[in-house]
């Protein structure tokens, strides 16, 4: 890295050495085909009170550029008041907001992946805001349970 870059980087956060835990990345596999899994996801996310702010079609961009690829979308989700509140209070969180969930086809199955929202709590200074991320975490688990249960 160029020296100048090093100088202007503002590393605003206290640094904690972190070890990877199984719960830092959440994944679920379903035997539903991609369109059904996508529908289950969208329905469940809304039932949990979150808005879907955008669905980014990664595969379309790739295929358009000549890279053959299976279905792949990124879904951005959040509750407006919470996102506004958090970014206002912690600009450092902006790069991660709203949180996103990847959904992609793997042969006949569909796999969903997201970062455990609790990892964002590392960037807050007011511990009383931690409950927001704890709720997000339990909601992701619950949404992923819905997706798994849709198999049965």
């Amino acid at each position: 890295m160029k020296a100048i870059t090093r100088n202007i980087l503002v590393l605003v956060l206290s640094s904690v050495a972190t070890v990877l835990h199984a719960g830092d990345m959440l994944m679920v596999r379903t035997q539903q085909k991609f369109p059904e899994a996508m529908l289950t996801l969208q329905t469940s996310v809304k039932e949990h009170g979150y808005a879907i702010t955008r669905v980014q079609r990664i595969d379309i961009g790739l295929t358009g550029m000549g890279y053959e690829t299976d279905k792949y979308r990124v879904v951005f989700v959040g509750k407006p008041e919470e996102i506004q509140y958090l970014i206002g209070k912690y600009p450092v969180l902006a790069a991660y907001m709203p949180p996103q969930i990847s959904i992609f086809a793997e042969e006949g199955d569909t796999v969903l992946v997201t970062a455990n929202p609790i990892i964002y709590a590392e960037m807050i200074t007011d511990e009383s805001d931690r409950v927001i991320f704890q709720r997000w975490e339990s909601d992701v688990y619950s949404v992923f349970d819905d997706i798994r249960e849709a198999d049965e």
Partner: protein
Amino acid sequence: MRIIACLFIAFLSANASAAPHGDELYARHCSSCHGNDGKGGVGVPLALPSFLDSVSDEYLQKTIRQGRPGRIMPAFDVLSDAQLTAVVKHLRSWSDKPAPKEDNSVIKGNAKKGKVLFAKYCMQCHGEDGSGGKGTGVTFSRKRDLPIIAPALNNAGFLASATDVMLRDTITYGREGTPMTSMLVAGLTETDIDDIVSYIRSMEEAAERSKQALNGNGSDSPVIMVDSPYDLDETVANLKQAITDQNFTLIRTEYLEHGLVEEGKENKKQVALHFCNFGFLFKALSVDPRVGMFLPCRVTVIENDGKVQVSTINPKRLGKLFNNHELDEYCDEMYEVYSTLLEDATL
């Protein structure tokens, strides 16, 4: 008699509901990688009798607890001991045979000779230094009919779980139904195999060091963030130029609150630029399809009390979430791209 039977059943079911359910735990924690029925996916197959019948419960428990640093398989320190036992029991349901007892006997071979044999008989699949095949498991953006990728042997998680006897037995008998064939059949003698076991064991120190290195550099900040000397509009214009200069395609520029609030009501002081380099993206996705989690590339610009701040995620830091060595070079490259963008736009 009937009363006793009833009581017994009542006792059983009460017990069952109190104990953790291995199948549910497996579905929640393991099936995304190893498949619902243990046939493999991002992870190697687990439902193979040839595998299950040759490893002890201790091996399975340690593997689950320790994970495989840098090889995607996470360390499950979140599971309680009772849950761990339940998961292992669920894995055992895929074989009729009882688990072999753990045997901690030490095997003393000649590691030097083992190294020579390894290069001849094992390297083509397990890699020059035992670091495993490229990719993992059976499907990682690959067709399912391709052979299982050979696991890393020079891995702290693996070496801490495997006993010398487990290594010897695996090499001697192989694993039916996988590319790992019996080396006795391939012509190696028992002494040869002991030598190889000692060679694999000698990788332990280096493996531990690389595990420490993985954990050690977790001290990076989650974001790359700089203050801009320009106003919001100028900063955004500079970034657009910098994105093009770096050979990335600008997908769109929008307010961060797009889709969150009614159109027109967004906070105009919070802007996100989305961009992509499809060639790079394609390569990264083939290495690990989960990286889409942080796509497309994005820079956010925020004005707060007249102060303009530009930020991106820190790919080096996030890379750790994936526990995948092969992604490191991509994360480093993205880190350079983001840093340069921020630098160019705020100079």
